[in-house]
């Protein structure tokens, strides 16, 4: 099934323009009207919806990357240095 923009209120944005605003839109940083236009475009365009959901998904996955910590030797040095600052 293919969405057809003519069935919707036209946003006046191309897919290229919409995709370029993904970051600001997802952070709710667009001016009101621009945000509404992106919202309208997304409502009518499955491709841009797929694009936005991939951007969101990658961000969420990146946040779940396993945490890396200092090596045991470096950790020990840090703890000693930290303790030394508070021993006097």
């Amino acid at each position: 099934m293919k969405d057809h923009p003519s069935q919707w209120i036209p946003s006046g944005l191309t897919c290229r323009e919409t995709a370029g605003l993904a970051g600001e839109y997802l952070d709710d940083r667009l001016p009101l009207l621009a945000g509404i236009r992106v919202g309208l475009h997304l409502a009518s365009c499955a491709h841009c919806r797929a694009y936005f959901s991939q951007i969101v998904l990658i961000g969420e996955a990146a946040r779940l990357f396993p945490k890396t910590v200092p090596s045991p030797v470096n950790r020990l040095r840090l703890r000693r240095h930290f303790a030394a600052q508070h021993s006097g």
Partner: protein
Amino acid sequence: MNSVAATYPESLEQHPSCETPSSSAKATALTNEERRLIGRLRTGDEGAFDELVNRHHGALVRMAMGHVADREVAEEVAQDTWMAVIEGLHRFEGRSSLRTWIFGILIHKAKDRGVREKRHTTFSAFESCEDEHDEAIDPSRFRQSGEWAGHWAFPPQPWDEQTPEKLLASREAVEAMHKAIDALPATLKDVLILRDIEGVEAKEVCAILRITETNLYVRLHRARERVRTAVEAALG
């Protein structure tokens, strides 16, 4: 050995190029959670320090890698940063968030180390200029002419991996993500690590990197698109 960074200025959020109003950032530089954490750190609570290190160490190393030659050096830069944090903590006044201050020290040290390694800094300056004008998404993915010019010619195909956990279960996807992130130039890597991996709010990323919000989103778009394209290719 940490004399420069131990006195690293906190007032990053006052950088004039940041378009967002800095006064509100200044008034709320420290959250209650951070205030409590700093209180614990100042009383010498080692558990609190371990927590702080665990929370940010990975991102510090990754960011340092954008500026220095290899992982080993990046680990050294991160270690030096923590040493400077320990030494500077009693002077930290909370004019920026604790995280902004820590990442500020890291960037300062990583750039300094990068210059000493003769990875010339002007290169990244050129790189960032180029960033502002290049297309983030490959233009050939859009129709070039006709009624639907600017609309997708080769649209992204919906992925089966609809949750981050499922995406992370795909070895190919994870490898592609790591490779793509590691290959990013420092200017793009910094924003992606802070915003997406660390989950730092946009305003704070601007303060840490001393860039405008417009600049942040241009870079973020480019960085995310490179990672997205890599995952797209990996998932076939």
